[in-house]
């Protein structure tokens, strides 16, 4: 018995798979170099969709602090922490518990520079700041820092309150976005290099159709191959 | 007197010193040859020191370093190795003398390269002789192959290239394709590749027994240098090389290294008793026997003198393999003696063939008619060498045959006695016919008038491409070595008893 609802509610994965297949198909079947790059882009984009899908939490909002909580650094810190803490795997995740396990383990794995208290005080450059792969670190690192600030002090109680309020909102997991932003950069760079190569190929061969390129190479090689055979025989 | 412990590594290092000296003296041929000879003399002296020490019961050893954990490059002299070392270094001296005469007589090119390669090759042969484990043996075995490749292809023409290709191809294919996995397998079973008295594998009988036959096959054919049929083609193909190289291949180092390795592997890796008990070697007795007869038969068809000698070598070396595979002490002893005896005999024959080439420019047996009268010394020596190989007393070649037959009887392989006898007969036919043609048949055919003309008329008329000398004996540098080895073949007959005693530990440790 096919559970249609089961299939339908995972439509994002179907989109991912379909796009991926389309992309790979174009890469393989098209002889035009630019079309190949187009296919490559579709393929990569499908991966972006997949990554973004797994970061989505049912009912969660984008990891941006609502204006109501925008009351200074503290709020933002709490926002960041909450965002990461509440992130949960998307529906269909094979083992959600491992993600949930991360938060619980956070307190005992206190960061070296005492980030547990720091998190309430400093914005942790959330998702969008991620740029290159190296940069994924902060976003990722913030992941477990959901724990309400346990650092004592007068500021702390206020902070805790703000954090508590912030924690009521469910956020999507920003880390996949960070990763995907990096992947986009890589993809853009790849596309640029690919197109540049296509341009150079067109200058060198006068065509960007794979068949014609191969034919041109074969003709050149055959001419050379004739000599090469003679040389080979002598050699 | 230098200590044997020191002589052992020195005998490996000294040829390399010679190598550098030869290289540096590239532009001064006389000094270069002097360096070769000096190296050979020193090497022989070192080999004698080791030989005597081993005879006195010592086992000089030297560990270079460990390449891979559990696999050191290590050397240890034992009777068989010491004997091989002595034979190789002694004959190398003779061969060097002869090379000088031959190479100059022939006006060969690239002589420096030639002597350099020789130096490396003899170092490798010494390495094989003194190797304390299979791993070391394999390393030097490969170095020997590679260093003789430029010697085989010395002429550099299409024929030499083809010969070299077969030479390298067969030897590399067998050593990498069969010998190397065999060694690795042995290592996997025994955890070491050290040569052990009584046999390395016999100590791990349980693990070794199921694969014993396969392993033995890998070794027997993997040591391609032993030229057991069907891995023999490299040997006839290597005949394109200059004669000193052929002599080196056949008598001094290469095939000897092959059969030496087989003997050593049978004695120290498998263990004679272990093989005897399991009977794993029985099929190889037949293969060796077949190889003996087949190669003899082929040799009879060959008109080219060197090719005939080459097949004779294939046949004679299978004696050693046969002796090893009989897996009884008399067989092993026969094989060991055959190494020395055949070395002297075959060396003589090859140098004679070379002398004939230098002096008369003849390569074919049928062209030798009447040549015995103009080159009597050469052909008398040839006769001695041939008779020794046939196995007639009082020449060195008779003892190995005696022990091999004894071994065949011990092992219950009565058929092999027949094989050995038949082989002797065939030897008579294809070897003794050569001096017979030279001495007894009068010179006739197209060559004869020319010869007369050489005696009578002007030696060189300017139109002839080659300046021809009248046929006379080869230069003394060629002749002296021939006489030396021929005498050696006679002397060895009388000293075989001493050699037997010397080699006795080899078979006793097996018991």
């Amino acid at each position, binding site marked *: 018995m096919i559970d249609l609802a089961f299939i339908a509610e995972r439509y994002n994965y179907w989109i991912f798979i379909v796009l991926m297949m389309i992309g790979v198909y174009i890469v393989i079947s098209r002889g035009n170099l630019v079309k190949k790059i187009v296919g490559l882009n579709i393929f990569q984009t499908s991966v972006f969709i997949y990554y973004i899908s797994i970061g989505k939490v049912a009912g969660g909002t984008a990891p941006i602090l609502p204006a109501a909580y925008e009351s200074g650094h503290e709020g933002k810190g709490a926002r960041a922490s909450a965002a990461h803490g509440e992130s949960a795997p998307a529906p269909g995740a094979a083992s959600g518990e491992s993600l949930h396990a991360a938060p619980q383990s956070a307190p005992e794995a206190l960061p070296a520079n005492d980030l547990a208290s720091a998190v309430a005080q400093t914005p942790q*450059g959330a998702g*969008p*700041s991620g*740029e290159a792969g*190296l940069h994924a670190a902060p976003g990722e690192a913030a992941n477990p820092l959901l724990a309400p600030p346990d650092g004592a002090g007068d500021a702390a109680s206020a902070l805790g309150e703000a954090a508590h309020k912030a924690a009521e909102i469910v956020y999507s997991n920003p880390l996949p976005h960070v990763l995907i932003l990096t992947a986009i950069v890589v993809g853009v*760079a790849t596309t640029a290099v690919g*197109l540049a190569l296509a341009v150079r190929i067109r200058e060198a061969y006068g065509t960007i159709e794979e068949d014609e390129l191969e034919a041109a190479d074969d003709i050149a090689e055959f001419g050379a191959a004739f000599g090469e055979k003679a040389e080979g025989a002598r050699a | 007197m230098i200590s044997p412990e020191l002589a052992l590594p020195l005998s490996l290092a000294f040829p390399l010193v010679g190598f550098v000296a030869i290289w540096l003296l590239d532009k001064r041929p006389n000094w270069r040859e002097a360096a070769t000879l000096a190296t050979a003399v020193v090497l022989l002296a070192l080999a004698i020191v080791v030989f005597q020490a081993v005879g006195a019961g010592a086992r000089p050893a030297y560990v270079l370093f460990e390449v891979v954990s559990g696999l050191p490059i290590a050397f240890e002299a034992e009777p068989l190795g010491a004997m091989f070392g002595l034979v190789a270094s002694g004959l190398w001296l003779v061969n060097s003398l002869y090379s000088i005469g031959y190479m100059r007589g022939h006006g060969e090119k690239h002589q420096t390269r030639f002597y350099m390669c020789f130096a490396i090759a003899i170092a490798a042969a010494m390495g094989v002789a003194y190797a304390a484990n299979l791993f070391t043996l394999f390393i030097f075995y490969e170095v020997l192959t590679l260093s003789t490749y430029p010697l085989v292809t010395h002429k550099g023409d299409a024929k030499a290239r083809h010969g070299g290709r077969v030479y390298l191809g067969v030897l590399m294919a067998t050593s990498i394709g069969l010998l190397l996995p065999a060694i690795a397998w042995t290592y996997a079973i025994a955890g070491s590749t050290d040569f052990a008295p009584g046999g390395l594998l016999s100590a791990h009988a349980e693990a070794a027994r199921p694969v014993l036959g396969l392993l033995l096959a890998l070794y027997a054919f993997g040591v391609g240098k032993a030229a057991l049929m069907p891995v023999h083609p490299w040997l006839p193909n290597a005949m394109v090389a200059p004669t000193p190289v052929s002599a080196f291949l056949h008598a001094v180092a290469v095939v000897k290294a092959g059969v030496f390795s087989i003997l050593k592997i049978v004695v120290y890796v498998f263990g004679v008793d272990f093989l005897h008990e399991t009977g794993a070697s029985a099929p190889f007795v037949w293969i060796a026997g077949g190889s003996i007869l087949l190669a003899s038969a082929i040799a009879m068809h060959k008109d080219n003198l060197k090719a005939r000698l080459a097949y004779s070598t294939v046949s004679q070396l299978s004696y050693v393999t046969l002796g090893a595979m009989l897996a009884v002490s008399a067989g092993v002893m026969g094989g060991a003696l055959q190494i020395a005896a055949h070395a002297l005999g075959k060396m003589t024959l090859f140098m004679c063939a070379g002398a004939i080439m230098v002096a008369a420019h003849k390569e074919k047996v049928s062209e030798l008619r009447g040549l015995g009268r103009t080159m009597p010394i050469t052909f008398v020596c040839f006769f001695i060498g041939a008779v020794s190989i046939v196995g007639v007393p009082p020449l060195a070649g008779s003892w190995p045959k005696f022990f091999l037959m004894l071994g065949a009887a011990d092992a219950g392989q009565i058929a092999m006695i027949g094989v050995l006898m038949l082989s002797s007969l065939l030897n008579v036919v294809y070897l003794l016919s050569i001096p017979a043609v030279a001495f007894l048949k009068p010179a006739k055919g197209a060559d004869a008038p020319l010869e007369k003309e050489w005696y009578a008329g002007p030696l060189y008329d300017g139109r002839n491409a080659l300046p021809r000398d009248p046929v006379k004996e080869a230069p003394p540098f060629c002749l002296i070595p021939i006489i030396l080895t021929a005498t050696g073949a006679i002397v060895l007959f009388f000293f075989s008893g001493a050699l037997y005693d010397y080699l006795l530990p080899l078979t006793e440790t097996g018991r």
Partner: protein
Amino acid sequence: MPHLILRVTTKMFFAPILLFALYVQFHGDYGPGGGFQAGVIFAVAFILHALCFGLEETKKALPQRALTIAMALGVMFYAGTGLATMLLGGNFLGYDALAPHSTHHEGQHYGILLVEFGVGLAVASTMLTVFYHFAGREPEIDPEDW
């Protein structure tokens, strides 16, 4: 000149686009934004300029050599920040080393600003370089072809 409107519009938009790029750049510390987005927007301003005024005009304003330097500088800012933190005794990109005595991790702010600036610079110049190279290969768009 039929494309006068485009040119005038471009002139009007040019500066705001740059300004917006800078906003996105420096707001990245607090909200959505950051070097990559800012860099792209920054580059867009010049691409628009080139589209309307011709590549040569844009190249006069922002020569290729400057872009090459900016690209390298961008990476240098990024990696240099990392090196600076290393020199100051922290780990690579350990921003806290930038303001070691701060009680609220002020270093993190400095670090992220510097790094994002580097990224923005690199992205903008790379984008423009790519554009220059592609556009430069075709003949200039003739005003009559509009």
